[in-house]
């Protein structure tokens, strides 16, 4: 694996650039001065529902099983072109994953910061559904 190919696996952003980035750091981290500051919020309820990742649901197991089986079949369906096929599949997946889950149209969102950019909304919905990890300790309210 050379440097060039590993670069495709790194998403680099100089600043937090979408709601997903910002939610976690602004709602769970940052300076809190309890004695002096009144936290006065509306609209947070939806964001703080405890959705932390739990790999213990039947749905998740079945999805994993299906994925393993599917990847298995892909890998064995064409013995002759096996390495090529697998590599190609991997790259396509990498691209899809990177765009969908990691980048989320980062630059586009950055330009539209605060304007409710389309690409950003999708990413945000994803993130809210999939839950935020360390922020769900019940100290946000």
């Amino acid at each position, binding site marked *: 694996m050379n440097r060039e190919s590993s670069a495709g696996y*790194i998403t680099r952003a100089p600043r937090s650039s979408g709601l997903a980035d910002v939610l976690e750091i*602004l709602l769970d981290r940052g300076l*809190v001065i309890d004695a002096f500051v009144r936290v006065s919020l509306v609209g947070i309820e939806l964001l703080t529902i405890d959705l932390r990742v739990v790999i213990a649901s039947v749905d998740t197991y079945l999805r994993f099983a299906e994925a393993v089986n599917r990847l298995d079949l892909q890998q064995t369906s064409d013995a002759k072109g096996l390495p090529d096929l697998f590599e190609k599949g991997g790259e396509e997946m990498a691209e899809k994953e990177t765009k969908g889950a990691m980048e989320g149209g980062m630059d586009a969102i950055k330009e539209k910061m605060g304007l409710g950019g389309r690409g950003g909304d999708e990413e945000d919905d994803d993130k809210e559904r999939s839950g935020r990890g360390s922020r769900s300790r019940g100290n946000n309210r």
Partner: protein
Amino acid sequence: MSRFYLYGVTRPREVPKRLETKGISLIAAGDRAAVVSDLDEGPVEATRRNLLAHADVVEQLHEDAVVLPARFGHVLESREELLELLGLPEIGRLLERHAATCELTLKGKYEESVLAEVGAELQPLRAAYRAGPSVEAGIALGEAVGQGLAARRARDESLVLDALRGLVLDVVVGEPAGELAAFDLAVLVERGGVESVEAEVEELAARLSPPLHFKLVGPLPPYSFVRLSAPAVV
């Protein structure tokens, strides 16, 4: 009576024009200053726009000076409250600690092919599922995959932490969120140390990608390293 929304605490300085036109101002006391905007009655709405605006203000100011970013939603009811806050000894301590630091967040996420790698060691369960893809066989296989993935996640998180340890001042280990999430780290570095972390992440990607994708964000204000009283994050 004026009410203030608190973005963070910094050293007295000029507010960039771009922020000034948005109503951001500094209220200084000695060598400390609160970054605020005037606020009408009523609660702060946690809208996308407001959250991004808060981040924009503290991140812009952090570009050339120390900023202790406040958590979203902090409201001070009077100027006196604000000055009292600025006078806290902890504020002075944090301003000194973070004089030349920044935070980088590093998240890892697997692409789906990790499931094939994990599943490769589960031949009997895979065969059973393919022979008869019942719910029971699916759960048995999926549960084993989930355990394999958890082990993989723990391994990769330690690898990354070990690789970064010598380069950073402090680390906050968050809980990765999402079925294929691998790790969620915040590291505190000297402003001059960003490049060495970038280089190390490239080394890590060369070792661990695919299936691991990295997302490195920053330099940010030290969001995860300004706790006063609450216990350290996980």
